[in-house]
């Protein structure tokens, strides 16, 4: 019997855990390795149908609405990915694959996108999905008076035409090789068309689950869609998503087995939760990162050397260890996560270097200067402590930092984008271009560092825009690598760390070996991707 046979026996339930480890040990495998092999094999087992899956999510508010244009929190993201589909989907590897689209073609300048739709897909009310539905669903986010949170993502779309009953052609004013990624955004759920407008009120989608009940801020329940077009997805019979905003309640719920999975496990207590033999802790390095934007148009941050001195005088290791309690990754002053495609892995990690920081400080003529750093728990949990840690390490480089504790209320309105240096967070975006467009390009609406002009910024903008329409992936990668170097070197953002998404999931639940990192809960598609073992 070799290890393959053992795995097979374990999968088929002929062996229990103890036997498996015993026999694996006989074959010369160390116990920890054997157990990891076992859990992988079990999770890779064929999904089974049935059961009611209950998840507790750390989001949700009484103000939630089924209108996809208003979605802003993880609860609604999960709901919309459960009952509706999008033209494209981000897979577990971070790549983009067609979902309601069947195939697509882009012109060489990446400006014209012809998207062929899947045929025979039905909405929950029995209506067949056609090009009209796609156009109405997209128009829901476009137009002058649209208040959609995703409006800016479609600004580049100058024309959208039905070129067949199951074909839509998009024309963009600027080429964008990542356009399919944008169409996978949770806002752009495909809803049935009703008299030329998207009908979101009824809550009909094409998804694997039909909304049974939706109570904003409390719960959403779903029943399996028997006509789901994906035959290998949606294994549960029923889904219940519960808003458990309070961390302790959430963790109590999974400890008491009242839910099968939770997200946002508190890093402080994750080791206690991990001791529970019926739970597995799943960590995924996500795109969420904590930043400290310095506004480069405000003195003294208009000085390159001062910015460099600040970036060098931060002990990133200490921040990851003390603020994220080790559940995160080091940041390199650019917003691209190590798990994303086109992340620059060649760039050396910037480390805490008080001597070099002193050198830059001297060059800036700012020795002994005092800088104000505005912070609040509103920016992220632990932001005040993070600022104090920065103050502490910076003092070793001769930089005095005055930590200003701002009120939580109105932080985004009164501090962020107003004060010269403050604490902030970014949930991250699936692609490099998207992230740059959101917060780093000169014409960005939320470029919180105000880093818009200057030789380095100009070069960065040119590179990022050129990369956007470059369909040759090698050339594109080279451009993005350089762009990340420029942001890291000259940009105003201090980005010391990326946080992990930590979930606790019952061992009764099977899931793909690699969870998607674009959102929590396996890209928020756990309802259709997971199953009962």
């Amino acid at each position: 019997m070799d290890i393959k046979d053992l795995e097979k026996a374990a999968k088929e339930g002929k062996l229990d855990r103890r036997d498996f480890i015993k026999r694996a040990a006989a074959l010369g495998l160390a116990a920890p390795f054997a157990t990891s092999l076992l859990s992988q094999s079990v999770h890779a087992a064929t999904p089974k149908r049935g059961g009611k899956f209950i998840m507790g999510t750390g989001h949700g508010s009484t103000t939630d609405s089924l209108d996809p244009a208003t979605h802003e929190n993880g609860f609604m993201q999960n709901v919309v990915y459960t009952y509706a589909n999008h033209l494209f989907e981000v897979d577990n590897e971070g790549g983009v694959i067609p979902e309601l689209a069947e195939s697509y073609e882009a012109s060489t300048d990446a400006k014209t996108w012809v998207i062929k739709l899947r045929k025979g897909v039905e909405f929950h009310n029995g209506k067949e999905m056609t090009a009209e539905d796609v156009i109405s669903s997209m128009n829901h986010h476009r137009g002058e008076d649209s208040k959609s949170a995703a409006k800016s993502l479609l600004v580049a779309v100058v024309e959208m035409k039905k070129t067949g009953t199951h074909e839509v052609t998009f024309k963009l004013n600027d080429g964008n090789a990542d356009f399919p990624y944008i169409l996978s955004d949770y806002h752009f759920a495909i809803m049935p068309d009703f008299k030329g407008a998207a009908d979101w009120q009824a809550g009909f989608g094409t998804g694997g689950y039909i909304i049974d009940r939706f109570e904003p801020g409390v719960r959403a329940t779903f029943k399996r869609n028997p006509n789901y077009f994906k035959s290998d997805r949606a294994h549960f019979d029923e889904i219940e998503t519960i808003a458990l905003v309070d961390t302790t309640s959430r963790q109590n719920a999974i400890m008491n087995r009242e839910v099968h999975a939770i997200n946002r496990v508190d890093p402080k207590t994750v080791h206690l939760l991990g001791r529970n033999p019926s739970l597995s802790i799943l960590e995924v390095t996500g795109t969420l990162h904590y930043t400290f934007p310095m506004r480069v148009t405000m003195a003294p941050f208009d000085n390159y050397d001062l910015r460099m001195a600040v970036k060098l005088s931060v002990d990133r290791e200490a921040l990851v260890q003390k603020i994220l309690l080790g559940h995160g990754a080091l940041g390199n002053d650019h917003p691209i996560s190590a798990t994303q495609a086109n992340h620059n892995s060649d760039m050396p990690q910037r480390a805490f270097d008080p001597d070099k920081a002193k050198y830059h400080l001297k060059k800036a003529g700012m020795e002994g200067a005092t800088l104000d750093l505005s912070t609040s728990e509103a920016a992220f949990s632990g932001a005040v402590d993070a600022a104090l840690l920065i103050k502490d390490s910076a003092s070793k480089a001769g930089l005095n930092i005055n930590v200003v504790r701002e009120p939580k209320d109105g932080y985004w309105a009164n501090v962020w984008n107003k004060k010269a240096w403050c604490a902030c967070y970014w949930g991250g975006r699936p692609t490099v271009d998207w992230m740059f467009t959101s917060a780093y390009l000169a014409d960005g609406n939320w470029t919180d560092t105000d880093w818009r002009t200057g030789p380095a910024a100009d070069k960065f903008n040119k590179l990022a825009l050129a990369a956007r329409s470059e369909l040759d992936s090698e050339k594109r990668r080279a451009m993005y690598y350089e762009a990340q170097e420029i942001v890291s070197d000259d940009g105003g953002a201090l980005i010391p760390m990326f946080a992990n998404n930590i979930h606790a999931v019952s061992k009764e639940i099977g899931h793909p070996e690699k969870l998607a990192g674009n959102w929590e809960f396996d890209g928020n598609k756990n309802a259709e991707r997971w199953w009962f073992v």
Partner: protein
Amino acid sequence: MGLIRDNRRGGTVHPVIRTILQRLGLGLVTLFVVSLILFSSVEFLPGDFGEAVLGQAALPETVAAFRKELGLDLPLHERYFEWLGGILTGDMGNSFSGRGSSGGSDRSRPVIELLAPRLANTLFLASMAAIISVPLALFLGITAALYRNSIYDRTVNALTLTTISFPEFFVAYLLILGLSSFTKIFPSLANISPDALFWDRVYLTALPALTLTLVIVAHMMRMTRAAIINLMASPYIEMADLKGASKSEIILRHALPNAWAPIVTVIAFNLAYLVVGVVVVEVVFVYPGVGQLMVDAVTTRDVPVVQGCAMIFAATYILLNLFADIISIITNPRLLHPR
């Protein structure tokens, strides 16, 4: 003796009604003042609804369009009278949130629609807690007075004082640990749904109701005990004692009727607390009550909902106090003739 009392009662039917009407009028005036304070103080909250609901990433023009649509650009007094008029006709206006990003007010939900199911839940939990705690407190208070300074009295006092001294969330977590984690008797989540059956509701709300009971029982129990003990020194109790009445008879028939006033005041105070002050318990047990609604509304600057909740809270306080006043007056003839 009996004759004099009858005479007095016969002559004061009017004063009772008059007093009640007076209190009712005063309550309305209070409510009006509360509404004024409420409306103006909400105005002074920092931040902005548009920015709060549209998030960190909202564009300024999107926020401006939102504000205009919600009528936030109108002067303060205009909005106040419109709102007050609405409340008098049972219409609390429409919630700011839930407005379609591309649509008008037709898609936002009326405050009353948001509030009603939550209020029903809160009242259900409050009644559950009251049904357990009030008789329990009265029983413990009376028996503690009956066996004053005995081991029983001391134990009851020590226990209830212990539970009231712990913060609510701590009591809640202890109950979860004991009755949910270890023994699995009750669920730790009390997120009831609107169509839950009555007994399911009772089962689901057991732990929050128990938590609230533990938190409020001490106050009522000690007031009952103190009020009765206070009366035990009165000459008429001594008279009853000399007459040969048993101890329990003395307390139940002679002392208790005269002790109702302070007890009822404390009970009313605690009942009001059950309705307006249980946010922490709601959060711990994920109970969809008014408290959570109000907290959500405050964080998103959903002003009509905040005002609606606050008005209901104020009305609850005023009504329950009125109720306590009336009971005190009816049960205690001396209050009818203030000198």
